[in-house]
């Protein structure tokens, strides 16, 4: 672990992987207001996610299920294989059971359809981050 990581050990790190820029932006701003002490990282593809994570390991990854090239499910599998401690929250436009079960098999901790995000995301993140000893 390098010095930088040591210094920021106590700050939760949240990585947002979302190819739609406006949504990614809104999401970060929203979560910043709720978790002001957290650090936010952003990427728009599977490749960017893995590249970022090789530098800085997030506590939670917010993963869009639909990504260009490698999709959210496959990316989650890769992340969980490499970094089993990292929690993945799968965000999706769909609420069909098939997607939820795929996400869970891939290793996602939680599956949240986007239309339920306003109500469900914050409590989920709070729970996940509380494992880090943060509120």
């Amino acid at each position, binding site marked *: 672990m390098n010095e930088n990581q040591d210094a920021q050990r106590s700050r939760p790190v949240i990585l947002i992987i979302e190819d739609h820029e406006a*949504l990614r932006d*809104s999401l970060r*701003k929203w979560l910043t207001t709720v978790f002001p002490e957290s650090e936010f990282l952003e990427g728009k593809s599977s490749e960017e996610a893995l590249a970022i994570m090789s530098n800085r390991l997030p506590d939670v990854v917010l993963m869009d299920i639909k990504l260009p090239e490698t999709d959210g499910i496959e990316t989650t599998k890769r992340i969980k294989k490499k970094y089993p401690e990292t929690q993945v929250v799968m965000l999706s*436009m769909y609420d069909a059971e098939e997607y939820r079960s795929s996400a869970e098999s891939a290793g996602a901790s939680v599956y949240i359809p986007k239309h339920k995000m306003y109500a469900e995301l914050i409590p989920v993140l709070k729970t996940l981050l509380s494992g880090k000893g943060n509120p």
Partner: protein
Amino acid sequence: MNRLPQGSILIVDDEIEILDALRDFFAEIGYETERCTSGGVALKVLEKRSFDLLITDLMMPDMSGIEVLRAAFSIDPQLIGIIITGKGSVQTAVDAMKSGAFDYLLKPLEWKLLKPVIDRAIEVGRVRRSEKKYRAIVEDQTELICRFLPDGTLTFVNEVYCRYFDKKPEELLGKSFMPLVVEEDRSVVFGRIHSLTPENPAISYEHRVRAPNRGIRWQCWTDRALFNDDGIIIQIQSVGRDITDRKLIEQALQESENRYRTIFENTGTATVIIEEDTTISLANTEYEKLSGYTREETEGKRSWAENVLAEDLEMMRQYHRLRRIDPAAAPSRYEFRFIDRSGTVKNILLAVDIIPGTRQSIASLLDITDLKTAEKNLRRAYEQVRALAAQLNEVEEKERKELVRELHDQVGQNLTALGINLNIILTEIAGKENDIILPRLEDSLMLLEQTTERIRSLMSDLRPSLMDDYGLMAVIRWFGRQFATRTGISVTVQGEELDPRFDQNVETTLFRIVQEALNNVVKHAGAQNVTITLAEKNRQIALTVTDDGRGFDTQRVYLSPEQPKWGIISMRERAEAIGGDLRVETDPGKGTRVIVEVKR
């Protein structure tokens, strides 16, 4: 003649010299004689004993020779009579013969000629005497027997003959039979009789007669003529029988033949009769038109093989052979290509069969060239329409997919972002009293939620993402759940996801068929339960949608133009567009099952 015939002769003449001369002459040649100078005396003698021959002068004071003969015949019908006449006129001789005379002699008597005449007369008499026995035989027969003179005068008729014409012998004898013959046939009969010669003494012919109470009848006669030394016909012996029944059968046959001929000619179809060696023995006018060859050019001259396209010839030759071994062994109805005189190839529908009890076959040829062309064009047009429809479906699906992607990637995400933003604002102003902004914001959030929901359902209506992400079974399961929630009809889905996945277009089509089938169930079936199964066996995929609803009468639904077809046609078209086959099994009260089968 070496041996002298023995016999008795009764001579009647008013001239005693002639009587004596004749007695001496006859004694010399071995005959016993009795002489009478008048007819009256002669008849009395005749009543006491019989003679082989009666010779009477024609001109006598008390009775004429003809009168003597007639009276004598009534005493002894078998008696042979000869007239001696001084008047050598033909008429007299004819009169004499008509009275039943066997012959006549002219005065002065020529002794040289006398002997053979007498000898023959005696012999005929002998034969006639034995006719009692002969007659007994004759009467047992069913054949008509008669003898007549060249002019038709009957000299003998048997009982059958009399019965046949319902006449007594005396009504017939001495008269010509010609009046019994139907007018139109008389000259024929006469001609036949007079065609007889010593070289060709016998002839058979048929003619019609009028039989009292029985109308016109057909008879067949065989004539045999007796000739004198000069080759002149003396008498004809004839045997006949009634052939009316046979004639009627022949006539009926002829009519039947004519009828078949007429049918053969007028079927409106080219028809031929074919011999075992492939020669056409009979052809009708339609065949002339079809082939371009006249009947004369065809019948007995052409083989059917000459008008068959080479590619079809071997098969047809084989059929030709097989058919003659076993008529059921070769197809009796098939198509082949015919070449007419001008070389034009025609499509022919052939119907061929063996004529029972023969080695011939009858074949009718229907020119279906135009029909074939029309059928081909129709099929081509139909295939084009089908291809277009299939293409249209594909294009539509592609567009739906594009639209869904656009809705997902842009509209959906924007709406989500918008929602987040509104939530941020909401958080920001939370706790601060603002009667104007807060309710508007809450309204907006609700509208946004509704819009998002609307877009999501629009997306799955257009094309469920499961289709592309998970496959046919997943999308069917998902749709089943949706359907069950929406309609309250229980849906069971059975089967595994196809592995490997099928062609996308095929999967999409099968899903669309499921949607349509379920749509029909909710619209028409009144069912409680629906089962959808998907199974693959030997690279054939079978999809079935079964309901327990009211079913329907396929005949009524398919055949009635007013009946809605329950979307079956559209489902079938979809199935056919992917090279599949769709069928519907149903009966009133028995539910409905839609089965689609597609090969990989």
